[in-house]
């Protein structure tokens, strides 16, 4: 987990003035491109009418927060928030818990079936949704799991669990095996070693895995759009779509809802992004 000390003793020469200006110029343009769609969305969310996006110039004069109050009071926004937290939280909890033991086992133990298991995990986390969605629908119909959060959590786990297993395996690999050895000498069983010694040390890895699981489940579109039917059970990804029906697209309300969703997620992302990126590159750079 090396976040490099970087900048301080960069020894290559200072940039020349031309290079400096062009670097700043490029980065500024790139930043503007990155920023603009979001700013535009915020701006459109201030226009009170659903056709304002066709005449954006007019919004400036009549900017209002009406869309926000409408969304918060007249739609199922808080139901969506709750559903999203349930689905994302449930996926995270279930996914990370079951992945942790597997990650540990494949990191430390060589058992028959070890390699095929790794391969299956790797392949499964790359499954496109189209592979499973049809049979899943059929099975869920019989189990009456369509239109339920539990069903969605299970579906999300099909990619989250193998993915987190790999991620955590990578993390456990960085914890010295001497620790396990010490645990064994103290008379701990492998479970005990895992639970008492390794898991506490692996907290940063678990946090990264949890973060990924949460974000992935949060932003899942395909299964949620297909399997969630009652508007009080929608996750945000589905709820947001309900504003843009072909014959009655309420882009103003959509924009306001989008901003309301994006703000907390973005803040959260910025708070944890350093850890995430370090965790992520650690996986890639070592080895």
């Amino acid at each position, binding site marked *: 987990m*090396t976040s490099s000390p970087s900048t301080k003793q960069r020894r290559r020469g*200072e940039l020349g003035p031309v290079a400096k200006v062009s*670097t700043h110029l*490029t*980065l500024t343009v*790139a*930043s503007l491109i*990155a920023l603009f*769609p979001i700013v*535009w*969305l915020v701006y459109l969310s201030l226009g009170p009418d659903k056709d304002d996006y066709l005449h*954006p110039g007019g919004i400036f004069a009549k900017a209002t927060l009406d869309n926000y109050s409408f969304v918060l009071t007249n739609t199922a926004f808080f139901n969506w928030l709750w559903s999203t937290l349930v689905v994302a939280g449930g996926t995270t909890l279930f996914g990370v818990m*079951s992945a942790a*033991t597997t990650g540990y*086992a494949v*990191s430390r*133990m060589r058992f028959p079936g*070890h390699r095929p*298991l790794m391969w299956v995990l*790797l392949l499964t986390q*790359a*499954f*496109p*949704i*189209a*592979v*499973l*969605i049809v*049979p899943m629908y*059929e*099975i869920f*119909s*019989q189990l*009456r799991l369509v239109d339920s959060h539990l069903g969605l959590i299970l579906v999300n786990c*099909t990619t989250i669990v*193998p993915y987190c297993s790999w*991620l955590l*395996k*990578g993390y456990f690999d960085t914890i010295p095996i001497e620790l396990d*050895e010490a645990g*064994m000498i103290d008379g701990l*069983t*492998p479970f005990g070693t895992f639970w008492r010694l390794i898991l506490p040390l692996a907290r940063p890895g678990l946090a990264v895995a949890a973060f*990924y699981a949460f*974000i992935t489940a949060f932003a899942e579109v*395909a299964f949620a759009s*297909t399997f969630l039917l009652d508007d009080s059970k929608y996750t945000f*990804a589905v709820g*947001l779509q309900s504003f843009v029906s072909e014959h009655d697209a309420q882009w103003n309300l*959509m924009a306001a809802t*989008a901003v309301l*969703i*994006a703000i907390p*997620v973005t803040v959260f992302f*910025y708070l944890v992004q350093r850890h995430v*990126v370090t965790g992520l590159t650690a*996986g*890639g750079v*070592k*080895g």
Partner: protein
Amino acid sequence: MTLTAPAPAAETPRSRRRAPRPVQRVRDSYRRYWYAYAMVAPVVIVLGVLVGYPLLRGFYLTLTDANSLNSARTIGVNTIDATYKFVGLDNYAEILWGPAAYDRFWSHFVWTIVWTVTCVVLHYAIGLGLAMLLNQRLRGRVAYRLLLILPWAVPTFVTVFAWRIMLADAGVINTMLGTIGLAEPSWLEDPTWQRTAAIMVNTWCGVPFMMLSLLGGLQSIDENLYEAAEIDGASAWQRFRHVTLPGLSSVSSTVVLLGVIWTFNQFAIIFLLFGNTAPDAQILVTWAYRLGFGQQPRDFAMSAAYGVLLLAILIVFTSFYYRWLKRNDQLA
């Protein structure tokens, strides 16, 4: 959108390299596989139930003519049994060389490849460029970095809608293009422009991840290597070619693999940008979804058959990729 996956090179456990005798003893005790199996059991069971069984079921469906009219359905207390019949490999034959094979499968197949390659190349090139700019002593570095990862921080399903509005016929992008006197393409209607729009949005969404990963990679390259190269009189290009790129090779192979898989599987962007329109801009994943859930009646058998074909493509790709990686590792 998942964020990362394992380093493919992690197969060689460091423990084996420097295994001293006591560690060996630990290992021996672990030989009692019982523990290992108990620990992987939850995942194996979960995957068996949630992936294995549906996969078999899905494969069986591809051998039938199942659709939403003849599938089993439970209507309250009434259950209507399935009436679809076994048709063997007919579905695959129809997809791959039936009369509509080009329109329905091959055109989407080619477009999926073009889409994947173009997007990943753009992600990587722009990401690397920005990472190298950020990897300098520069005023405002942190601010740039924070701004540039914004497209990654905001959920995709939100930003796609922002693009959907901006790309509309009278949207802000065409207004801008119009004011500077350029053509105003119909981004959401003309097949070629639909594809361009999809690539554009996906590039916008995907660059920050590449940039950050590659920035991490750049920062881990030993400064002395550059110094040595400079002393040897290497030009900027030579330093890039012979120090930077090799230094990034392991992180690159990981992020390119991830990029390919994510782009190939990218559902949300195309689905949300075009809704039920734009048949030509659908990649295989969204096309398979549309066959199964976006039309009436729903063609479950065809959709599942596309799923199986997708899986086959993915398996072939990952196998080749690993073989290629292994060979390169041996060469290096």
